[in-house]
């Protein structure tokens, strides 16, 4: 297995040198004399064969992956206000309820649109935890929509963690703007034609 692992890669024109453990041939010399304490001499002659490393060119196309692209929707991001959250929390605040009620009644009237809820966080947490916190925030809003009778098949959620801040100010005010769930209204392209 270790021999199979040989070179890495060159992608996008940058060289990557992979390493495999070099083969070693250890030939102990016959001069090893175990007697005599101070005069002991260890001589180990080893020839290291060239490392089995090569510069291998890999086109980025060679990294194969199968995935479809989206693009079947017209996205409308600014139809509703954002839902804001407390630091490190995902409970819906009481003052968000009127925004949610407005959005929900519109979604109920416009039953053909689909709804994306994005979860976002401020930058203070750690990247990975913020990603699950954003997931939890988006889902707190989604659960609210469920309670209004909006079908689960119309709702999609995604977490962006701390990746897409609105404000870059490092103040509580700036951070508050970033701790949010955001609605994106998805209009199917074929329907709106």
């Amino acid at each position: 297995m270790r021999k199979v692992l040989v070179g890495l890669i060159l992608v996008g024109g940058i060289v990557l040198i992979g390493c495999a453990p070099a083969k070693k041939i250890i030939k102990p010399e016959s001069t090893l004399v175990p007697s005599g304490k101070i005069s002991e001499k260890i001589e180990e002659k080893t020839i290291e064969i060239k490392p089995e490393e090569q510069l291998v060119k890999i086109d980025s196309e060679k990294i194969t992956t199968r995935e479809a692209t989206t693009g079947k929707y017209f996205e409308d991001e600014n139809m509703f206000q954002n839902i804001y959250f407390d630091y490190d929390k995902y409970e819906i605040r009481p003052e968000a309820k009127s925004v949610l009620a407005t959005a929900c009644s519109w979604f109920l009237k416009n039953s053909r649109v689909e709804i994306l809820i994005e979860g976002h966080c401020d930058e203070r947490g750690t990247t990975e935890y913020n990603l699950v916190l954003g997931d939890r925030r988006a889902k707190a809003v989604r659960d609210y929509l469920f309670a209004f009778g909006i079908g689960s098949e119309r709702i999609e959620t995604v977490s962006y963690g701390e990746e897409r801040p609105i404000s870059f100010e490092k103040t509580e005010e700036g951070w508050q703007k970033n701790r949010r769930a955001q609605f994106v209204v998805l209009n199917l392209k074929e329907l709106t034609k």
Partner: protein
Amino acid sequence: MKNKLRVKVLLIFFGLFFSIFIPFTSCESKVYIDINSPLFKQLPIAIQEFSGPYGKEISDVISSDLEFTGLFLHINPDAYLETSAQEFNPKNWSVLGVEIVVKGSVEIEKDKDLIVMVFLYDVFEAKEILKKEYQAKKELIRTLSHSIANDIYNKLTGETGIFRSKIAFISGDKKEKDIYIMDWDGNRISKLGVKKEAIISLRWSRDGTKLIYSARRNREWGIYCLDFVNMKEEKVFSSKGTNILGDFLPKGDEIIISSSKDGTPNIYIINLKESSKIKKLTSSYGIETSPSISPDGKYITFVSDRGRTPQIYLMDIDGLNVNRITFEGTYNTSPIWFPKGDLIAFVGLKVGNQIFTIEPDGSELTQLTTEGNNEEPSFSPDGRCIVFSSDRNRSKSIYLMRTNGENQKRITPGNMECFGPRWSSNNF
């Protein structure tokens, strides 16, 4: 089957080895520094500039490799009484307090191959303890130098050096992220070309042939596996919700992840060969994430907000016996298990995000960083160093430190935004 055969071959090999070498083991196994003893003393070493073409370049890499470990006391070359061309004379070194001397010479063969002779001397016993010849193509000069440093390190400590291991990390702009790989010292940065909207949680397989990670494409967080042998990237798991890779299980066919596929983020074990084999380990309405497995495969450390704030917890590999480890601070995340035993590194909020270590029983809490925000710790294969990301110089870069917090240094370029570092095994 194949493994069995291999074990047999190894046994035969070891049998032969010991039958021949037993008389000499007393000299063979001398360890100059007992690095596992808390009272170890730095070993005074003189690394002479290698003679011949590229000699300085090679001996500089060796010096800086050994220096970062903190195990050696480097004696200033200005004080040396002997040139590299002169024959080793212990009297020239004992007066300087030097205990180990490294000499080397380089020749070029056929205009492209480097042939390096390396000699290691014990000053007290006035003898040569290592003599070795290396040969490599000129463009592999850094790999060659790291190999020499590994051999010297092994001879003096009895342990395996980490100088040929690699570090993977993430970089890119707002629209597109990619994975990069570099040597452990930050040299030879290379881009892999996997191109994703967002990438998180890079993890190496133990044999170094695969890199697994979470990436977002078209609003979906999937788990991808990049196989270096055939250079194929494959999506190994995807579902609705956020899927974040945690760790490999020791056997290698299973991974532990956090997924919100059923609503809230919980921890699952997935078989890579049969993705239908999914085992759910936690069931909470809150957040359960970032699992990391102990080296013996028996325990999982993870993050949970079941106590109202994110804290580090411990549970058995089957999800039972959950215990909270951290009680100080209100935001403790990103735990990672020490590769050699009972220690966990994690990130705690204390005037910015800082890296701490703690024992699995909650004792010995130690803060390692203080400047800026420091995140995403990952241990070197021998557990003696930690790589992490820090914004202490404004933009995020990759830094190294020793596991006791000493010798913190940036290893990626200041103008390149880098994060999510992960150290490979020595098998790379």
